[in-house]
């Protein structure tokens, strides 16, 4: 018996020694500046656009540089989780990680800062969002922000019909306490947004052409915190003031209450408690909602007759009511443990050129360079609005090491209140305490 136990113990020990041999890399190396560069990306418009840029580089400039870029697509939902696992094991498998302004602070310990990159061509807000402790940790690639996407035909019909205007005044008086005239969405504030949500909902106005005025993205998801932040910022709020959590403000309470009012009054689908980007698209495409605060990448698909046969040509774009839009940049970063850093840097330098970003725009991306957007407005009619709204209304949330956790935690703490399950004040108190812990 003892012998068997000894043998088993020896086998386990041997295996453990073998496993120890598989220990992760302890540090990166520069390499000889050539060879294969492995870069993470995610599926969707950004990954597809990047694939075209990679292909063009491998067929052209890459031949001269002696570098071949290999793009590794992970799932859109779990790219950052998988990267987290790679970083936790100090893996050198990937030379370049897919990052974003909302997680670059969290990942910074596993990334090399990017020195010597000329950032003057980028949106300053994109560069700011990727700068952590005064160092740039990622190269801006694609900018995402929000717009009010709305049915132009329905708004035009409302504005042109005196009876509808009168009905709107009635409803707005009921909802806001004072009667308002309907306005062009380009000039809406958050009260107009609320009154319009009521007017276009059959629960409030049985004659409404749509079942619901809007669709809220209220799922417990970090990206939905970004959408809600527009309302918070629109009311003059912020996450923090002078390093202290500021979600106990009046603005924060108004922002949560706006969501709760819209949800509990059925001015959005009851299913919006689990809605995010795709559900918002579906509500607009099916014609069940008249408008929504939605990501910039959505507009092209909504006006595409193949993807949105019922509403293509009827959709228009306006700034987010309240005049504030979250901006984040999707980006690429250099893995601190890469074994081929020089070649990776060469590829990153190429990506930072207007030529590469023009290819990226042509392939369907939204590059973070205003001049490139302006020069390519023929490709995507939303480009000028993207430029204008980021320059005029864009803000980025505070960047601190736990920004990523803060987005998730806020979604967790507030999503119940967004749909009226928890009183706004109670949820905000919890959220504020948790945010303060994360701010440190």
């Amino acid at each position, binding site marked *: 018996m003892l*012998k*068997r136990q000894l*043998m*088993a113990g020896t*086998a*386990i020990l041997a*295996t*453990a020694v073998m*496993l120890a041999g598989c220990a992760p890399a302890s540090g990166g190396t520069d390499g000889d500046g050539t060879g294969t560069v492995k870069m993470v990306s995610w599926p969707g418009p950004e990954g597809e656009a990047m694939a075209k840029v990679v292909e063009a580089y491998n067929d052209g400039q890459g031949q001269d540089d002696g570098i071949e870029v290999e793009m590794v697509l992970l799932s859109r939902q*779990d790219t*950052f*989780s998988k990267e*987290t*696992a790679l*970083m*936790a094991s*100090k893996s050198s498998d990937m030379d370049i990680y897919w990052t974003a302004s909302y997680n670059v602070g*969290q*990942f910074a*310990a*596993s990334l090399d800062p990017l020195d010597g990159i000329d950032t003057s061509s980028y949106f300053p807000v994109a560069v700011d969002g990727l700068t952590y402790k005064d160092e740039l940790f990622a190269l801006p690639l694609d900018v995402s922000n929000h717009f009010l996407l709305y049915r132009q035909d329905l708004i035009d019909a409302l504005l042109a019909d005196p009876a509808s205007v009168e009905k709107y005044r009635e409803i707005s008086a009921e909802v806001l306490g004072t009667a308002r005239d309907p306005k062009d969405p380009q000039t809406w504030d958050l009260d107009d947004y609320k009154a319009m949500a009521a007017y276009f909902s059959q629960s409030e106005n049985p004659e409404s052409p749509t079942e619901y005025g809007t669709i809220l993205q*209220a*799922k*417990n*998801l*970090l990206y939905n915190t970004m959408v809600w932040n527009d309302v918070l910022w629109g009311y003059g709020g912020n996450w923090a003031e002078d390093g202290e959590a500021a979600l106990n403000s009046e603005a924060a309470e108004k922002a949560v209450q706006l969501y709760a009012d819209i949800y509990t009054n059925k001015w959005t*689908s*009851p*299913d919006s*408690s*689990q*809605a995010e980007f*795709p*559900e918002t698209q*579906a*509500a607009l*495409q*099916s014609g*069940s909602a008249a408008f929504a605060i939605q990501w910039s990448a959505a507009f092209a698909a909504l006006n595409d007759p193949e993807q949105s046969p019922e509403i293509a040509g009827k959709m228009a774009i306006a700034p987010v009511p309240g005049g504030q839009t979250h901006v984040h940049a999707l980006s690429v970063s250099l893995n601190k443990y890469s074994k081929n850093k020089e070649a990776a840097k060469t590829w990153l330098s190429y990506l930072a050129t207007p030529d590469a970003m023009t290819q990226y725009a042509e392939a369907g991306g939204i590059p973070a360079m205003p001049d490139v957007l302006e020069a390519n407005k023929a490709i995507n009619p939303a480009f000028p609005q993207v430029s204008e709204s980021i320059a005029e209304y864009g803000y980025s949330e505070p960047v601190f*090491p*736990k920004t*990523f*956790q803060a987005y*998730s*935690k806020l*979604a*967790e*703490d507030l*999503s*119940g*209140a*967004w*749909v009226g*399950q*928890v009183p706004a004040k109670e*949820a905000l108190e919890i959220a504020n305490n948790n945010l303060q812990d994360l701010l440190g």
Partner: protein
Amino acid sequence: MSTSLDTRPALGTRKRAVAARKRSRTIAAGVLSLPLIAFAAVFVVYPLITGSMTAFQASTLFDLAGTFNGIDNFTSLFTSDGFAKSAGFTVLFSAIVVTVEMVLGFGLALLVNRRFPGKKVFFTMILLPIMVAPALLGIMFRLLLNGDIGAIPALLQGLGMSVSLFSPDSVVPLLIVLDILQWTPFTFLIIYAGLQSFPSELLEASAVDGAGYFRSLFSVIMPVLTPVLFAAFFLRAIDALRTFDVIYVLTAGGPGTSTTTLSIYIYKAAFESGDFGRAAAAALIILVCLIPFVPFIVKRIASTGMEKTK
């Protein structure tokens, strides 16, 4: 005069031969066990040791090396609402779905254990849900149940029923129904396999003794199938307590934390908060809570079941 007819080797030689045989058997056993030992070492022992060590460390994305922090991770879990809530939801969810799946799986197995036209087609149809990857099933449900473009709400609306399947009031029942739809085929399959090897003479004997269908079911079939039922229950319970994919895809644990399972809690702790220490501590607590049940269940599975009919 006596002549020895014993042609066996001397005692010492025999002992040596026995010892040699024993040695060679031990070596053979050791060699044959090596793959299993290696498997256990790589996939059980090593992760368990690493996970347990991580549970006592402040190991985050900001401090990958990890520093020993005693029981801080456990204290933080026991004092946080989130862990207790997710544990409560997981236990309740698992208890409901496993009970219903066991009853339905048993009923279906009894039904399919008879001859009827179209049995093979029916059998295949029942098994379809377990052939689909859970995460994919989540995505399919997300599309099928979408209030604006989903087939199921459209069908219900056609029947004059307006239901919001994802509203906070209906989302938990919805998740329970989806889990039952997905996993009842699993319990059915195990119990059906047990029924296939059921000794028919027992049923014949009980019929001769005048037992009716339900008397035979409760006094003969169920006792004999006890190990099979426990195996199905055990496997499903373990799986239900680890539920992740479909719920994560559909609700991500919300609204708030109302549908957060322990697996989702651990996943978020590790991959959203980057707090590997707290995630490992939560996983270790679950393991410690579950281990005491294992001998009890294994004993039931290992029993023959036949003893109970005697």
